[in-house]
């Protein structure tokens, strides 16, 4: 078998094992939280009778292990079940929310990843001169300000004062692509500002590291221009760490944006998950947790494979 295929299948198997581990961990932790779904739904207005009736209806009276294995049997067959709290089909609700989350992450990534790499290259080209310092200063500032603050500032000036975009990034199926893009403009800007610095700094550091090597000096002596050296000779050799950082940030764009969702009222996975954790709606929490874990594991796997492919020494191991 080709070593790459072997590696991928090994990683896949490991990933699935990890997913089971993650689901067990999530289930255990949600169970350990005080209260249960019935209690959380009824809240202050819980009477003992209503509680007992609701527990019975939700099937919370059965042992935890039974419930976990029921869920596991379902998910293996592709059935995520229904939500305890509002009885809606989980696959359908999660599908909608995941679609929205990926939509936002896609546009944020489409802008931020090329921009970060480009800025990184520019910073290397003008190392220690004003463009480098300016880029670093601006991106480090935007990553240091909490994202909700950037969000509020943009909402205040751009949405409330200037009225260019809506402060609510609510999208639904009846909107055209243009309307959707206009709705998510502000959150995309915020997310871009948040993830830019990390990727940009890593690009800069990785390429600068390569720039010290002998073959770059040779290229310089050949008389190649500076940008071409960076792009043709330094960048390919620096790609592994960059891809790693890019993937981490992509994962963040999918699983870590709950604060931005709250600020812009974006109907994504983050808010959905938080609501259901608060209500101890275990099947939904499990479904979301497993999807998030799968995205994390998948993107990390891609990063590993790309760095192997990019490095001939790893591609052809002795």
């Amino acid at each position: 078998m080709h070593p790459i295929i072997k590696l991928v299948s090994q990683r896949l198997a490991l990933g699935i094992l990890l997913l089971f581990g993650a689901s067990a961990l999530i289930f255990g932790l949600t169970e350990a939280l005080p209260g249960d779904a019935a209690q959380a739904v009824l809240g202050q207005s819980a009477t003992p009778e209503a509680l007992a009736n609701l527990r019975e209806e939700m099937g919370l009276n059965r042992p935890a292990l039974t419930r976990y294995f029921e869920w596991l049997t379902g998910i293996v067959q592709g059935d995520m079940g229904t939500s305890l709290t509002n009885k809606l089909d989980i696959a359908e609700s999660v599908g909608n929310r995941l679609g929205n989350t990926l939509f936002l992450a896609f546009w944020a990534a489409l802008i931020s990843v090329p921009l970060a790499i480009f800025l990184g290259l520019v910073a290397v080209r003008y190392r220690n001169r004003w463009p480098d310092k300016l880029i670093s200063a601006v991106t480090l500032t935007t990553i240091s300000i909490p994202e909700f603050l950037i969000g509020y500032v943009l909402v205040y000036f751009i949405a409330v004062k200037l009225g260019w975009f809506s402060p609510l990034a609510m999208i639904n199926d009846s909107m055209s692509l243009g309307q959707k893009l206009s709705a998510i403009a502000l959150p995309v800007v915020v997310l871009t500002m948040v993830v830019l610095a990390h990727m940009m700094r890593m690009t800069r550091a990785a390429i600068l590291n390569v720039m010290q090597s002998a073959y770059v000096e040779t290229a310089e002596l050949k008389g190649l221009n500076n940008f071409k050296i960076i792009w043709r000779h330094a960048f390919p050799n620096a790609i592994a760490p960059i891809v790693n950082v890019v993937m981490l940030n992509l994962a963040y764009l999918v699983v870590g944006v709950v604060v931005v969702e709250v600020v812009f009222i974006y109907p994504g996975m983050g808010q959905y998950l938080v609501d259901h954790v608060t209500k101890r709606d275990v099947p939904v929490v499990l479904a979301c947790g497993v999807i998030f874990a799968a995205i994390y594991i998948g993107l990390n796997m891609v990063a590993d494979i790309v760095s192997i492919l990019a490095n001939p020494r790893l591609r052809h191991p002795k």
Partner: protein
Amino acid sequence: MNDQLNHMASQVTAGKMTRREFMGKAAALGVSAAVASTMFADAARAAGPKKGGDLKLGLQGGESTNSLDPATYASSVPFQNGKQFGDQLVEVAPDGSIEPRLAESVEGSADAKVWTFKLRQGVEFHNGKTMTSEDVLKTMQRHSNEDSKSGALGIMRGIESMKADGEYFHVTLNEPNADLPYLMADYHLIIQPDGGMDNPGAGIGTGPYKLEADEPGVRHLFSKFENHWNGDFGHFDSVEVVVINDATARTAALQSGQVHAINRVEPKIADLLGRAPNLTVHSTSGRGHYVFIMHCDTAPFDNNDLRMALKYAINREEMVEKILRGYGSIGNDMPINAAYPLFDDTIPQREFSIEKAAEYYKKSGHDGSPIILRVADGAFPGAVDAAALFQQTAQQAGIPLEIKREPNDGYWSEVWNVQPFCASYWGGRPVQDQMYSTAYLSTADWNDTRFKVKEFDDMLFAARAELDPAKRKEIYSKMGRMLRDQGGLICPMFNDFIEGVSNQLAGWESDSTQEMMNGNMSRKMWFA
């Protein structure tokens, strides 16, 4: 200039001038935008309701876990949803009287034990079926039978039997209750086809708007139901309830015109927001109150002198000013205020007094060990700060009050109604009887102060059976005084509903029953 303005206003009333034209011309006359806006609203109100337009409400209090099943309603968004697609038998009117809805009239027997609702005929559900007394009966059964998990279960408990009889619906009670119509106005008791037995979360009712899209935690869209039994209700083409839990985002949405009204404006920004020219901030005094509750049967709170010491040690004025920023009124250690019918305003107000607090504390003979007050942010907005203020004033009186922060998560299951001293809130009830039976009757599930006094219970039952308002008022006054001087309730303040409403809307009415005009904005308001 006045003549010209009056002329313009009459043009508006006659429907010959739009808001934009009016504002433009008023500005040319040198009238400020705020004044012109108010004038326009008055003139438009005089013109009477106009039909059409898409109303958007931006509301706090919705989660992705919400269901349309009325039995599960416990927060603002589901409450509003119910008001769009459903009707109760009766509704509490803004003046506190009972207003007919699906029941044309209500009649009680002389002993207030048997109640008869005459049902409106020819009322159509959104699924095309006609409402019958069977539907009413099934609805009430679903909220009261032994499988019920309804939020209304508590108030349905006094019912002995129910009967559907042609165009009548009869309720027989275990004990007389003169307030039964108010119980039937509860927002959970939306009449559903077949009582919602088969599909409780379908969102089908008889309301002025029918469900179009249900995306819990995001938005709920309703469109005008043409066959509604009352053509005067519901002037909009559609109503969209948008979930905006973040306070800043909610305010921004209103300011930028993305929504037409928002609930729960934060007291600290209400003044600032009110200065914006295109909207009005309405503050409505309600029956909701923020409280600190002590278990009367648990040491050291089983000592009434210690309870009194704590009651005197709280500075109510300071709390209203700092926690509510003036959007509220001071409490009197009883759960009733002037918003209730039959309220006795001669009951003396408890004053803040360090001396009296110290005196009672000394008299109580408390051993000086810390008195632990449990509190979480979620207990009520500003609860942690309020507890800190309480601690400071208590310390001045020599009372060793200690604050223990609890997580929001699980507060209502682990702390409230479990721990002997904690912060909490009550949303209030339409009538005194209901408030007292919910939380101060010895046997009440939510007797969160463990106040168990037979004399008090007897008075409550006596008032219930009493049909003469003057006598009832007297009994309620005695009960209020008793609770104030012996109860475990420290009630420093009653909070207002603070809401932001766009000036494009006309027809606002103050309603202290519940927030946002008791959920009736979409029925009673219109686009000017």
